[in-house]
């Protein structure tokens, strides 16, 4: 039964893939009809595609446009994860100055409206006398995820590559996962989301998370669609200070784009910790303590727009200190 389903799913996926590519091909051809020349000079190989009329056409791959956010795997594969991987992130708090490039990149990549952040930068102050520090926070993709435990319909799930994803076509919107997540990671679509026209007709996949849907829960997904293409998540790429190291625990390597280091060595050398370890959620995100910081904390505050300043005012302008 399971096997059969898998096969069905696979053939359906292949079909959809080709169909989707064909749609792109036709639009590409359409837009290129006047120029009637391939975009790139070099002649690439021919590919067979299924046209919207159901015919198989052969087309020069140079005519194909690259489409981002394509659901390149089936629902079933999106639930299983990338074989052999175990994604992990290390966040170097000593380098963060709240440049907010990660937030912007994440918002842009996922077509997120302003204020509805998957990735937030908090200003933490652990004790009264302690110094405040910037604290970027994605989803922790816990190995013992309290959100997954409570989901009544298996809409949020843990994959073999460590990721915790949400299927917004399955989610019933009970918000129990939001109540259960101790890190306030999840956001809810309280109204019909504004979806830009260019992603409106994209096929949804839990790996891409778009388009968003009203009445469902969503959150940071560690961008597995980019991992499949061998790219880093946008937040990692966008950070000017190399705060985020992303990688594979199985390979024991993490990279922030500039340098690639041994994961185990890094967390050993820099005394990494996991946020609120005592909760027993076993996060897949490690933090390097904000020791010997590269920037004074004010650097991330002074130039902020008023609206954002308001978020942190109560700590930054604490006159009692």
């Amino acid at each position, binding site marked *: 039964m399971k096997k059969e389903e898998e096969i069905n799913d696979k053939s359906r996926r292949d079909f959809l893939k080709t169909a989707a590519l064909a749609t792109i091909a036709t639009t590409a051809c359409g837009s290129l009809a006047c120029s009637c020349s391939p975009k790139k000079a070099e002649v690439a190989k021919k590919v067979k595609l299924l046209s919207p009329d159901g015919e198989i056409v052969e087309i020069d791959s140079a005519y194909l446009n690259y489409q981002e956010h394509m659901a390149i795997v089936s629902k079933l594969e999106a639930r299983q994860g990338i074989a052999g991987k175990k994604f992990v992130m290390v966040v170097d708090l000593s380098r963060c100055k709240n440049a907010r490039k990660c937030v912007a990149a994440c918002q842009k990549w996922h077509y997120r409206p302003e204020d509805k952040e998957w990735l937030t930068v908090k200003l933490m102050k652990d004790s009264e006398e302690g110094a405040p520090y910037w604290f970027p926070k994605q989803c922790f993709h816990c190995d013992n995820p309290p959100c997954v435990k409570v989901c009544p*319909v298996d809409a949020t799930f843990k994959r073999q590559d460590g990721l915790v994803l949400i299927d917004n076509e399955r989610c019933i919107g009970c918000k129990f996962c939001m*109540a259960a997540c101790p890190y306030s990671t999840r956001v809810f679509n309280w109204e019909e989301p504004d979806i830009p026209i260019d992603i409106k007709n994209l096929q949804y996949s839990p790996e891409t998370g778009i388009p968003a849907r009203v009445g469902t829960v969503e959150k940071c997904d560690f961008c597995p669609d980019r991992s499949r293409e061998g790219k880093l998540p946008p937040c990692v790429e966008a950070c000017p200070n190399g705060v985020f190291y992303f990688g594979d625990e199985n390979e024991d390597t993490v990279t922030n784009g500039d340098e690639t280091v041994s994961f185990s060595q890094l967390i050993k050398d820099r005394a990494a910790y996991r946020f609120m370890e005592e909760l027993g959620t076993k996060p897949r995100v490690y933090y390097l303590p904000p020791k010997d910081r590269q920037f004074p904390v004010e650097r991330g505050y002074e130039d902020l727009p008023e609206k954002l300043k308001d978020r942190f005012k109560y700590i930054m302008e604490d006159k009692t200190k």
Partner: protein
Amino acid sequence: MELNTYQKEIFERQRPVIEKFGKRTWGWTIFYLLWIGVGGYALYLQIAKGHKVTGMRDNVVWGLYIANFIFFIGISYAGAVISGILHLLKVEWRKPIIRIAEMITVIATIIGPIFILLCIGRLDRLHHLFLYPRLQSPITWDVLAIGTYFTGSVIFLYLALIKDFAIYRDAKLNIPKWKQKFYKIMAIGYRGTPSQKRHIKISTNLMAIIIIPLAIIVHSVLSWIFGMTLRPGWHSTIFGPYFVLAAIYSGTGVLIIAMWVYRRMYKLNSYLTDKHFIYLGYIMMVLGAGYGYFTFSEYLTDWFASEKWDNEVIEKLFNPAKYGWWFLFANVAGIILPILVVAIPKTRRPNLITLAAFFMVLALWVKRYLIIVPTLESPLLPMQDTRMEYVKYHATWVEWALTLAGVATFFLFFTLMSKFVTIIPISEFGEKEKAMIPAKENEIATA
């Protein structure tokens, strides 16, 4: 069905109630329907515009609706536990009140889950609960437990009704044909043969035994929706028994209020006697003491150990500028008042007991709100949000309208049901219960 003199007397007294609908009943029915209509409009808005029209946001993901859900499932304990336990203990004075108690149970068990549905973002996907059920989720436990409990409660109510349906069927009531037919079908051919009597007796005993653990499971599972999370104020080991006790307690309160209303409305003073109020008052007092003990234990431990997160919630509850006054009300009206009113002989009067019960039920609703909202307003990470509606929960008119619609539905169901069945069960009064019907008020014999 042959009726004995006592049964005849009780029946004649209640006959007009089920024969005529009456202007006053029409008035109330329309009033309730209007409220439900307003709620319907609110629901339409919520579905059309999304949950944006409620006060719930990413931090406070649950609000009034969940409080109402716990509240209604709580008062449903009136029938389940009170009537079940009294039945098993063979307490004779229970007989005039079991119908009211069991009706509360069934109606509240219908309305409660409606409120959890209001909280769900995608009602169109409700079937996913059965298509892709995951047994490890406390919500699945809830679906199973409440479903079973509701079925059990309906059976329990119905078992006690069969004999009465047979009486209405044979009584040549001045009622329309369809109603006559309804009674005939519902009586399922009951003629009072010894075998039929025996079967009903055995089934009722069985159901009384089954319904008690079922009820305990329901509210425990419900409390675990909160208890299973890593949230301050929720993640507590005593939440199961705490919720169960609070539920029986509020159920008793609603039972007392319903008794008072019916007694006044239909002049049933000789059946719903002062003794009923006083006995139920005693039960309420004992439960109140137990509930108070749980409350004290819960907050004392949190406050004394003063762990960072617990402390944050406690601070909100104790601070008069935040939830302090509500917390005080919940504990004074919810614990101290009912105990004192029943404990002091001078105030141990039906009216005062009912008043205390009324405030207690109100206080328990406030308590449910205080369990949910302050905790959700205290996430472990700082909120650092500039949008006030994300930081602090304020219920909108949509949520209030639907809350009132729920209360109106409760009353409406009650009104309609009392037009189909007698509030005081007739068949329960056998010849041996002669003494049950006191010549004077304030006099009731316990078997």
